[in-house]
């Protein structure tokens, strides 16, 4: 029990303290423009302590900004799953489909969000759908690939059970293929959510929409550097929490 507390609480706090020390040293030595931890806190206090105030489009509490970003990520993520899951199953199930579309998947996967976003703006003419389009397009690949791998690694024993019972195609899919693949699918979902959150900052910076990323870019342009750090910490914290939450969901569907 003692060891548990020291390992789970004290050591991570020690790590965080080290980072604060390094940050302080860097801010007084090599980078005088970088606000120190104390100054960052003083200038960010209101955004954290009153997270839902709203003084203007871009001057809002960090809770409100995070909420905008989360809604946007939620939409993009949902779209990524809605498109990525069926594509993943098709890639895993059909050799023909795999031969036709796997090269395209491998080709599109490494394309950066920075490249998709302008294209989204050209297609949709508005920043909001362009941002969601970019998030979906960048975030869906882990779902696609994990689902396809999951389908391909189903034990032939399970499929043989279905063959002996002469299950119909639909029944084989719903009773055997989908349940056997589910753990892989949810690993894909967790990775996709991480990517979606990674993309949101870039999308908001480029489109200037209100949200944590948009706020970060605006404060950089207004030379309020402490708010950049506030945004960075917020992005990290939310990303961490999202990953943990998806991890819990993933653990629930894990069967063995």
């Amino acid at each position, binding site marked *: 029990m003692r060891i548990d507390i020291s390992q789970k609480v004290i050591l991570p706090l020690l790590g965080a303290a080290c980072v604060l020390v390094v940050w302080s040293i860097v801010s007084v030595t090599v980078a005088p423009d970088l606000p120190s931890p104390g100054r960052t806190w003083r200038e960010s206090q209101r955004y954290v302590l009153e997270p839902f105030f709203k003084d203007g489009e871009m001057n809002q509490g960090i809770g409100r900004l995070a909420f905008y970003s989360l809604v946007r990520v939620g939409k993009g993520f949902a779209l990524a799953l809605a498109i990525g899951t069926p594509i993943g199953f098709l890639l895993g199930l059909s050799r023909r489909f795999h031969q036709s579309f796997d090269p395209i998947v491998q080709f599109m996967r490494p394309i950066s969000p920075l490249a998709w976003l302008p294209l989204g703006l050209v297609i949709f003419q508005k920043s909001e759908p362009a941002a969601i389009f970019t998030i979906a397009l960048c975030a869906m690949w882990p779902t696609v690939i994990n689902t396809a791998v999951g389908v391909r690694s189903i034990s032939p024993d399970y499929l043989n*059970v279905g063959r*002996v019972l002469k299950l119909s195609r639909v029944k084989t899919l719903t009773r055997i293929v989908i*349940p*056997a693949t589910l753990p892989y699918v949810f690993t894909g979902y967790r990775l996709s959510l991480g990517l979606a959150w990674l993309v949101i900052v870039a999308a908001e910076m480029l489109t200037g929409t209100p949200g944590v990323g948009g706020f970060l870019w605006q404060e950089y342009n207004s030379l309020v550097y402490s708010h950049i750090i506030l945004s960075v910490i917020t992005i990290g914290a939310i990303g961490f929490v999202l990953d943990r939450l998806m991890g819990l969901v993933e653990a629930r569907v894990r*069967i063995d």
Partner: protein
Amino acid sequence: MAYLEVRGLRKSYGTRSGLTAVLGGVDLTLEEGEFVAVVGYSGSGKTTLVSLIAGLIAPDRGEILLEGVPVTGPGPERGIVFQQYSLLPWLSVRGNVALAVDAVNPGLPASERRRITDEFIALVNLTPAAWKRPRQLSGGMRQRVAVARALAMRPKLLLMDEPFSAVDALTRATLQDELLRIWGERRSTVMLITNDVDEAILLADRIYPMTPGPDAVLGPAIEVGLPRPRQRRHMSLEPAYQKARQALVEFLRAARTAR
């Protein structure tokens, strides 16, 4: 014509290192209600033979006739207990058995199918564990579920591929006794694959020894003259037991040295 006729069955697998001829012309017959065992060394091709009769793989040559009808693919009339646990881990004991019951009785009302499912779970003494997942069960319990699932298909022929080889000796004895009881009650037609000579003699009416591969074949069937119902105790002292055992062991030993 016999209930099950297997004639001149040949099967090779193509691998990267060339072609391995596993079965080199297997002949076998099984009468309705008969319990036949096939005994052979590990790797001789027993699972291959079962997969062929189940229709999961196709032979290179030869034919398999069940009630005179050629086997062309898998089907629930040839229920199978796989060598590895092949229970679906996301389904409970009930779910696994119900999958088979629902698949072979699509016309029955749900309540009736539920009753049949319960009946087969009770048959293998798993009613208290009916809602457990396979991973919560011991190895012996899992094999019971696999037996219940295969029986629930109400197969004309029950294929069992080393069903008890993965469990400890004590559990194995219990499962064998249970299988004896169930077979005594229902008189299904069974083909049991095993590498355990004593298991074969305890359970079977006739035993086919299998030569080690490549090109494995079955030796002449050995009749087990033991009366039924059989009791495990004192059986090893009976002359019929010793006769069958000697014939089997001798054939297997000679087949191995002939390689």
